């Protein structure tokens, strides 16, 4: 009963699960390919490394899934994440907050970034692409200004790095960060499939006017969706800073595209209205495995982005094909 109704609750399930199946098949093929191509690939430490790389992009992709299903886009997540990392550095190192407060503060700061995005989009009416492109630059600049362009180290709180790196299972290297990621996947999947927030994400992306006419306060729910995506950005930023035990103020650009790629590869339509968390996670794994596999097989860095770019093009083209057939 549960399995049947669960499947039924994913809109346009036939085409959606077809893409998921295809993505999952591709993931297996890529895994097998790299396992033969390099002896270092299919080792526990490398697989854990892949999971850790997938954690940060994957958490960004979780929030982005909601945004894209609701027919929006968020380009500010990459540099926003960097800014949240800097903020937790500011809270903990400069202001001397305890670790928990520094972490919570940075996560909420991410929520604030998302709230501003949502406000600009649904109240001021700025198109999502432009609104979040602006925020992307603002966040990138603020990171540099606030940190004085230098990395912030967590000298007072050496235990902060445990948040990402603490080994949950004794004797095996299974980092706490990955466990947090797994929990967030479940949380996001439940919110999307079982709550009003998820339902409205689908309905707004499917037909915004109809949703409004049905008495739904679309502006309010869009702000909530972007704010939630911002919370995920905050968590990703904190974990990234914890992983390196320092807040790096530079970079982040391009990460948003990796996250969006994960979402699209997983079968979420850029037109909105359909998508799933399972698909996004497969997509995030594909991106992480590809990036890692190309590295361990010693493909030059320049070529890595060429390959990932091509994968995104193929994924989007398949989305177009599916829409034509439907």
């Amino acid at each position, binding site marked *: 009963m549960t399995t049947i*109704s669960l499947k039924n609750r994913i809109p*346009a399930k036939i085409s959606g699960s077809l893409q998921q199946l295809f993505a999952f098949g591709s993931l297996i093929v890529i895994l097998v390919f790299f396992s033969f191509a390099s002896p270092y690939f299919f080792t526990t430490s490398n697989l854990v490394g892949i999971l850790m790389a997938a954690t940060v992009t994957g958490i960004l992709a979780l929030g982005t899934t909601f945004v894209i299903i609701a027919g929006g886009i968020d380009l500010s997540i990459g540099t926003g994440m960097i800014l949240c990392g800097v903020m937790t550095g500011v809270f903990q190192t400069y202001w001397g907050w305890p670790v928990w407060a520094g972490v919570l503060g940075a996560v909420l700061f991410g929520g604030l970034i998302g709230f501003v995005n949502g406000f600009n989009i649904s109240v001021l009416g700025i198109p999502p692409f432009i609104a979040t492109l602006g925020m992307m630059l603002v966040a990138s600049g603020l990171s540099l200004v606030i940190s004085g362009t230098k990395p912030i180290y967590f000298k007072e709180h050496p235990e902060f790095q445990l948040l990402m790196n603490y080994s949950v299972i004794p004797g095996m290297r299974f980092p706490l960060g990955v466990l947090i990621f797994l929990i967030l996947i479940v949380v996001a999947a439940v919110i999307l499939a079982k*709550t009003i927030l998820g339902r409205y994400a*689908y309905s707004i992306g*499917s037909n915004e006017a109809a949703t409004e006419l*049905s*008495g*739904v306060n679309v502006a309010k729910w869009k702000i909530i969706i972007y704010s939630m995506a911002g919370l995920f950005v905050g968590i990703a930023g904190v974990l990234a800073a914890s992983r390196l035990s320092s807040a790096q103020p530079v970079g982040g650009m391009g990460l948003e595209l990796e996250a969006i790629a994960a979402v699209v590869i997983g079968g979420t339509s850029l037109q909105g209205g359909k998508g799933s968390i399972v698909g996004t996670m497969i997509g995030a794994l594909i991106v992480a495995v590809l990036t890692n596999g190309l590295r361990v097989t010693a493909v030059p860095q320049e070529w890595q982005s060429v390959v990932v770019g091509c994968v995104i093009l193929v994924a989007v083209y398949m989305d177009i094909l599916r829409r034509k057939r439907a």
Partner: protein
Amino acid sequence: MSWKDPLMQAPFLELRGINKSFGAVQVLRDVAMSVRAGEVTALVGDNGAGKSTLVKCVGGIHPMDSGEMFINGSEVHVHSPREAAQLGIEIVYQDLALCDNLDIVQNMFLGRERTSGWVLNEPEMEQLARKTLDSLAVRTVSTVRQPVSSLSGGQRQTVAIAKAVLWNSKLVILDEPTAALGVAQTAQVLELVRALADNGLAVVLISHNMNDVFAVSDRIAALYLGQMVAQVKTTDVTHAQVVELITSGKSEGQQA
């Protein structure tokens, strides 16, 4: 079901002196209209006569500039679709306010989902949706978990109407429900419209199609250039007279 003489009943909805302008254009002039429970009132008029604007004023989408609105004799003010719904007024829009990617149940409950705690109560919604469809004698839909995109035009209209009556609504306004339908589907939808009124609801049917109007309506209200030029019993007028009302605002046989 009890069938009282409609003439004996006070109107469910009564509008008086409704005015509405968009900028310099006055779309509605001093419009009065009454709609009774258990009846289908056809609202006719040429393009631009103000039918949709009138409906949107009642539905809380456009604020009216002046005028009074009474429900069961007491004055009400409607500022949003949500407030209209709370008064029992539901509108089925011409462009079918349905979400293609959602299934029938999800569409019917959109904006008014049932939850238990944080979680959507799917079994309850599914059951209620089925019950409503059954009560409307809808047998054209095989499963309520079908996405709306897979339905035919008539089925979609049926879902839109079912969505409107799910809420113990008392007045259902249908904006050109048969405009895009074939012959058989039109008959189906008209049957449904008649069934709503026979179940005691007040129904307003906006239509351009005289056959539809005469097939199901009890009364006809004609708008001409923003003015209500006639409200008559359907049995008292002919096709030709109604067409004349629509095109010229007056009729030889019907000068009230």
